[in-house]
C-alpha cells in the first residue's frame, strides 16, 4: 500500500510529489500520458504572475504571491530557466485608468511588492514597440518568465530521485473507499493508498465527483497562442499584459526564457477536455488583440501556433484540500492561471496537509538539488571544448535551429524519468522547437531514441499512444 497516490504529473502533481518527497513516504504518481508535463502545464503563457490579479484574501492570491516569491530560489535549486523580466499592464484608454488603480490597490493588498503606475513616456522608453496610444501602465517588477517544461520536469525528476515512483500511460477509472484508505482503479490494475491527491487538471472534477457528493464542474478554457522566431528579436522586454476594459479581455506579448516571443491567449470555453486544436477564429482574435498593444508585431515570423486548456472551475478559485465527505482524498483542482506561478506553493501546501494527515517525518537523505541537462551554449569556449573531449556526443549538433547536441539528447533520454518520445526530447532539450520545427532533426532524434531505449524506430512516437512517426518500412506496402 502506498502512503500517497498522486494523480497527474503536471506542475501541480509534480510539485506535490517533490514536496512530499521531503518526507519518508511511499509515493506513486499516476499519469494518463506517456510523460510528465503533457496537459495544461505544457501549453500556457510561461509566466510567473506577480499576484495582483486574484481577489484579495483568496487562496489563489495567497498561493500566487507565495509561488512567485519561491520561484527564483527554486529555479536555482532545481536548475530550470527562469528570468525576472518584469511585467506591465498596459492601459490603452483614458477611461480605463480607474481599473489600473484598482489593480494597483489589489496588488498591494495581496502583498505584491514594487508596484507603481507609470506614464506613457516611460513605457515607450522602456518598450519602444508598444503602441503610442498607450496611456499608462501598472509596472510590476516582480513579474517573471519561466520554462514551464523545465519547472515541471525538474520537480518530477527531483521527486523521482527522492524515491517517488512514476507510472505513465495509466488512466484512473474509479475509486473504492476502504478501511485504511483508497483503492484506485486504473486501466492497468488497482493500487491502494492511504491518501489520494487529485491533480488531474481538466479532469479533476471527474475524479472528485467519483468520491464526493459535493460536485465540482471544470470547464476547459482554451487559449490559442503564437510563438515567434527568435530572429524576430525581443519584441517586448517585459511581459506586456492588456488591462481588461474597453477592448475586452486582452492578450499578452512576452519574451520567453529562450528568446522567443509568445503572443496570446484567447479564452474560449469548450466542452471537450482533450481538444487543444487551434481555430482560425481564435488565432485571428489573438493577432487582432496583440496589435492593439504592439501594432507592428511580426506575426509573419510565427514558428508555431498552439492551444492549451485551463481548468476553470465554476467558482473561479483553486480548490485545494481534503474533500470533506471523502477522508484521505485531497483535491488539487481548478488550477487555472496563475497555476504555474503558484505551483511551488501548491506543492508546499498539499505536502503540509499530507504530512499532518499521515504523520510523516522528514527524509534524512532528501536531495534538494537537481542538475539539469547541460546546455553547452551557456558554457565558455574552453568549457565546451572540455565537455566534447570528455563526451564527443556534445560535438554533434542534431537540432540545427536550436543547436542541440547529441549529448544533450542522450542525457534527456537516459536521466531519471527520461524522454521516450520526440515531444519528450523537445521539452527537455528544445530539439525540434526552433524555426524548422523538427524538419531536419526529427528523424535523427528518432534514431537516438531507438538506439538508447532499444525500441524499434517504427515504435517511436511524437507524444506516446498512437502518435507513431512512421507506419512501417518501405518495400512492404501493398500493391497499389
Amino acid at each position, binding site marked *: 500500500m502506498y502512503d500517497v497516490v498522486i494523480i497527474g504529473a503536471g506542475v501541480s502533481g509534480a510539485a506535490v510529489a517533490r514536496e512530499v518527497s521531503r518526507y519518508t513516504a511511499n509515493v506513486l504518481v499516476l499519469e494518463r500520458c506517456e510523460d510528465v508535463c503533457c496537459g495544461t502545464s505544457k501549453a500556457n503563457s510561461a509566466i510567473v504572475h506577480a499576484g495582483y490579479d486574484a481577489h484579495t484574501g483568496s487562496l489563489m492570491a495567497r498561493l500566487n504571491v507565495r509561488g512567485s516569491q519561491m520561484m527564483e530560489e527554486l529555479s536555482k535549486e532545481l536548475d530550470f530557466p527562469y528570468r525576472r523580466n518584469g511585467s506591465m499592464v498596459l492601459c490603452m484608454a483614458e477611461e480605463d485608468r480607474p481599473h489600473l488603480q484598482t489593480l494597483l490597490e489589489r496588488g498591494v493588498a495581496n502583498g505584491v511588492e514594487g508596484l507603481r503606475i507609470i506614464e506613457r513616456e516611460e513605457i515607450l522608453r522602456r518598450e519602444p514597440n508598444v503602441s503610442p496610444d498607450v496611456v499608462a501602465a501598472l509596472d510590476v517588477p516582480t513579474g517573471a518568465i519561466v520554462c514551464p517544461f523545465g519547472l515541471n520536469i525538474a520537480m518530477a525528476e527531483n521527486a523521482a530521485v527522492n524515491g517517488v515512483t512514476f507510472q505513465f500511460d495509466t488512466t484512473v477509472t474509479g475509486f473504492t473507499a476502504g478501511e485504511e484508505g483508497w483503492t484506485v482503479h486504473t486501466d492497468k490494475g488497482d493500487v491502494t493508498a492511504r491518501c489520494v491527491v487529485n491533480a488531474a487538471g481538466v479532469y479533476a472534477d471527474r475524479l472528485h465527483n467519483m468520491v464526493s457528493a459535493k460536485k465540482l464542474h471544470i470547464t476547459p478554457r482554451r487559449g490559442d497562442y503564437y510563438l515567434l522566431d527568435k530572429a524576430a528579436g525581443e519584441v517586448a522586454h517585459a511581459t506586456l499584459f492588456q488591462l481588461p476594459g474597453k477592448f475586452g479581455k486582452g492578450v499578452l506579448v512576452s519574451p520567453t526564457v529562450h528568446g522567443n516571443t509568445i503572443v496570446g491567449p484567447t479564452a474560449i470555453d469548450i466542452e471537450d477536455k482533450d481538444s487543444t486544436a487551434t481555430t482560425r477564429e481564435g488565432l485571428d482574435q489573438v493577432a487582432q488583440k496583440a496589435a492593439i498593444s504592439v501594432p507592428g508585431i511580426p506575426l509573419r515570423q510565427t514558428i508555431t501556433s498552439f492551444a492549451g486548456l485551463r481548468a476553470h472551475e465554476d467558482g473561479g478559485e483553486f480548490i485545494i484540500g481534503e474533500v470533506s465527505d471523502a477522508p484521505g482524498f485531497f483535491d488539487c483542482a481548478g488550477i487555472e492561471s496563475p497555476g504555474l506561478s503558484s505551483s511551488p506553493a501548491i506543492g508546499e501546501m498539499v505536502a503540509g496537509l499530507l504530512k499532518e494527515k499521515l504523520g510523516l517525518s522528514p527524509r534524512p537523505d532528501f536531495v534538494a538539488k537537481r542538475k539539469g541537462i547541460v546546455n553547452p551554449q551557456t558554457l565558455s569556449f574552453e568549457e565546451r571544448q572540455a565537455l566534447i573531449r570528455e563526451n564527443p556526443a556534445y560535438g554533434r549538433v542534431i537540432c540545427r535551429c536550436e543547436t542541440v547536441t547529441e549529448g544533450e539528447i542522450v542525457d534527456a533520454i537516459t536521466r531519471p524519468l527520461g524522454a521516450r518520445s520526440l515531444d519528450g526530447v523537445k521539452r527537455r532539450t528544445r530539439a525540434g522547437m526552433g524555426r524548422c520545427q523538427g524538419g531536419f532533426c526529427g528523424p535523427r532524434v528518432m534514431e537516438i531514441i531507438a538506439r538508447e531505449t532499444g525500441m524499434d524506430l517504427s515504435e517511436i512516437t511524437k507524444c506516446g499512444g498512437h502518435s507513431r512517426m512512421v507506419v512501417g518500412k*518501405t*518495400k*512492404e*506496402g501493398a*500493391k*497499389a
Partner: protein
Amino acid sequence: MEKRQLTCIGCPMGCPITVTMEAGEVREVTGFTCKRGEAYARKEVTNPTRIVTTTVRVAGGLAPMVSVKTAQDIPKGKIFDCADALRAVTVKAPVSIGDVVLSNVAGTGVDVVATKAVAAAQ
C-alpha cells in the same frame, strides 16, 4: 473516333492538347503551340514511357537503402510492375553507381541500375 486530352510538359505553358485517334492511329493533334507539343502528344498517346526511380534495400552497407533507376524508359503501364519487382530485391554492399540491381525488370528488357554508391559497413 476517340479524343484524348493531354497537358504538354514541354514548358510552363502546359498547352492543353487534344489528340483525335481512330483505330489506334493519330488522326489529328490540336491545341499545341510549338513543334515540341505535337511531338510529345503523338508519343504520349501511342507509346507513353517513363523512367522509374525508386530504392532497393542494401545488406551490409553504410546506408539501409540505395536509390535506383531504370536504365532506359519503360512503358508507362509497367511502372507499378517495376516498383513491385524491386520490393523483393536486396543488394549487397558495396554498391557502385551503374551496378545492375535487377535485369530485364518486369519483362521490359530494361535493367534497373543503382544511382548512388553505398560503401560496405566495417
